[in-house]
């Protein structure tokens, strides 16, 4: 458990909490700087912040870092379905036919039936 690992006299939960709070400030603050950053940059910041916060909560608060690996495998299991959903979103998008790279699309040409 994380309470046994001390950094500067405080346990890992405390430092995880501090990191989460700092990154939440970044997250909320990013949208107030739209004039300085492009919206795509802000979205990039939000994704990075989300990954860091997700890792902090999952790894330390939910103990996935210390617990037996079976729990990590269970936690990652839905990722397969989430990726499938994202793939489906891409394929069903009107731009999916021409806009997606070839490696992530079915071979569209082979699906064309000539009459």
């Amino acid at each position, binding site marked *: 458990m994380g309470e046994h690992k001390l950094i500067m006299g405080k346990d890992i939960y405390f430092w995880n909490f501090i990191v989460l709070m700092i990154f939440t400030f970044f997250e909320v603050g990013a949208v107030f700087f739209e004039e300085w950053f492009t919206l*795509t940059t802000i979205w990039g910041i939000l994704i990075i912040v989300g990954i860091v916060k997700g890792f902090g909560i999952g790894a330390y608060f939910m103990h996935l870092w210390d617990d037996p690996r079976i729990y990590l495998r269970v936690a990652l299991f*839905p990722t397969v379905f989430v990726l499938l959903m994202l793939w489906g979103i891409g394929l069903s998008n009107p731009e999916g036919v021409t806009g997606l790279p070839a490696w992530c699309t079915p071979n569209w040409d082979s699906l064309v039936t000539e009459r």
Partner: protein
Amino acid sequence: MGGGGSDVKNAVWMRAVLMAGMILGLAVVSYAGLGVVAANAKHDTWESEEAEYDIAKKKYSAAVENGTITSGDENESLFVAYGNAYNDKTDAHLSYLTYRVAGLAILFVGIIFAAFLSISGIMNSSRADEEHDEHHGHDEHEHHGSASPIIFSFGCLLFLLGFPDFADGLHGLMMGSTKGTIGDMSISMIGLTVVTVGVANWWREDLPFNGYGEQLATSDPFAGQHIRKAGIWVFLMSEVMVFATFFSSYLRMRTEWCTKWALDDGKCSLESGESVVLTASDYLRPSGAKLDKFGESVGDFWTMLPGAVNTFALIISSYTIVLALKVAKSHDYKVPSGPLGKLMPTKKAAIRNYLIITLALGTMFIVLKLVEWSHLIAEGFTIGTEQGSIFYVATGAHGVHVFAGLLVMLYMIFKADTVEWNEDNAQGIEYFGLYWHFVDLAWVVIFPAFYLY
């Protein structure tokens, strides 16, 4: 449930009734203060701002008609006064909604908390003390099946069957509209009552269980692990799928919408007469695309504030539940120095109070969410549009998860006074904590996707 039970006397259950009374009292006082006194004062201010606005509008319109000033000339003092009066009127309306909805939300949440505690307390304390011994506690490895989840599920079915009418009734009650009446809420209220009875029975069965004798899985892939822990993880992963469905639906819909963002990025174009699709973030974000009648963005620091505060509240509440578990598992509890020491004089009090802080933060989350919804609806972002539908369903489903967590937490607070938690029996807090962290994790995705993007 495993074994390791202990006897729970009627007096212990009466504490639940006492807690219910305290919570109800607090909710009524908060409602009276916020929802009646402060809201009425704000309503008066709103009315006077409306009158000021009407005067400013008439003066401006008359001046334009007379040809004294040009329509829309920002340098004219009458136009500035008209704009300022409009802003003041809008702010006064939203301020009134803040107090009114906050008061009503606290009362509503308080009544449900009190109902759960009092029905459980009265149902269980009215049984003879001997009956409490009848099913529990002498075999470390005994296992009980329970019918409570079936009762609970039937209640959920009734609640959801009546939900469309319930929503209309609630809308009528909170916003004073004529769309629905309190009578429309009856099927859902019966459902909630059945849920409450199911939960009360569940509490009765669980309270004597002091956490020793946790059952272990005997076969792969969880061999040697606590069955309840494996169960909660599998449950959480099914919940991930629920939220992934909302999220992927939103992303799929979003790729079709010509939002301001997509327009600026050259990903879509507008025909004449068309306007950009407005999402919730356009109403909330500073420089969002929703403009008022004077061309100013309706989003600013204050519209973002409830969502931002809620984000911090969930992170802090995740930490306080970790602290409750840490104290529960500690061998030698040291009383903190300073004012915190007075709040946490004993190990038992520390666990209970950390849970109470978590409950308070979660309740604040629900109240602020409803306040924020009332503002969005007042500004025209309703569930009647595609954007509104996915926003309210996704954030509402998350809110329901937070609220369900609060009801469980209410029980954990009650149980904290009856069980001596230590390193070997604090799994209850740990497993509930996993659920609470998941709710926080879901918000980590929902907040940027729906509020900021």
